[in-house]
């Protein structure tokens, strides 16, 4: 296994672990609850 392959595999595994932990904590729901509303501050209105 080359150094690059090892680094890439470690990064991908780390990313997967972060996503799993986030899903367990219910963070996709938080992303969804923000995303389905119009964020007036984001579009500069109000």
């Amino acid at each position: 296994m080359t150094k690059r392959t090892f680094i890439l595999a470690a990064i991908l595994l780390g990313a997967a672990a972060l996503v799993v932990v986030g899903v367990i904590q219910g963070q996709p729901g938080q992303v969804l609850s923000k995303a389905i509303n119009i964020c007036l501050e984001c579009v500069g209105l109000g």
Partner: protein
Amino acid sequence: MRTSGDSSEEASISATKAVCVPGLNCYSCPGAVGACPIGSLQNSLSGMTFRFPYYVLGLMIFFGALLGRTICGFLCPFGLLQDLLNRIPFPKKIRTFKGDRKLRNLKYLVLIVLVIMVPIFVKLTPAFCKYVCPSGTLSGILLALGDSRLFAVLGGTFFWKLSLLILVILISIMIYRPFCKYICPLGAFYGPFNKVALMKMSCDKSACVDCGACSAVCGMGVDPSEDPNSTECIRCGSCIKTCPAKALGYEFSLRKKEAGDPLDTSA
């Protein structure tokens, strides 16, 4: 459409918005099918109770590790807009200028300060979205045109961001992808992944004739023959098409490309 705190409007509810798309898009647009990674990151960091953004950060790292800044070159809608604007004829196209290299570091400052630090320390303030993001301003214009109630609440922040949007549009005609080069925090995040991403570029040194054609055609100011996986490279492929020796190509493999490799995409 439902605004934050307004329960009387029908919500544009889509479960796909629980997932971040790789590129910069304003998820405030009811037409968006995915959440913006930068917006979601700021939203996670700026909550009243700090929660480490495992989910959003994990997705962003995953995208970066797979594709690096290929996302900028092929998946970002605002990058596409700048590409199209740069095709407008203009007598004085600017390829580089004094201070260009130093100014490229501004996007890392935007990422660290506006996307990470300000939302953490100033609650409920997605600073990049609120004060800078031109993609959000475009969505705001479209939303305001379609709904007079929103048009009525146009405020100072909107006009500030509108000025920035107009500036980016005008500069894009003269300079190739100025937002990507100098401001975009997503580009700053994905850039370092170019060195290790699964999707990368390679230069066959034995075939390269050092003609300089690749660096001459590169809009991002990269010399692909020297550094094909530069943090500034958006993998647009212009250098691959231009190279007379077919020395440059994409790699989507963990193997090191060798001469005659069946995975050679430089032809």
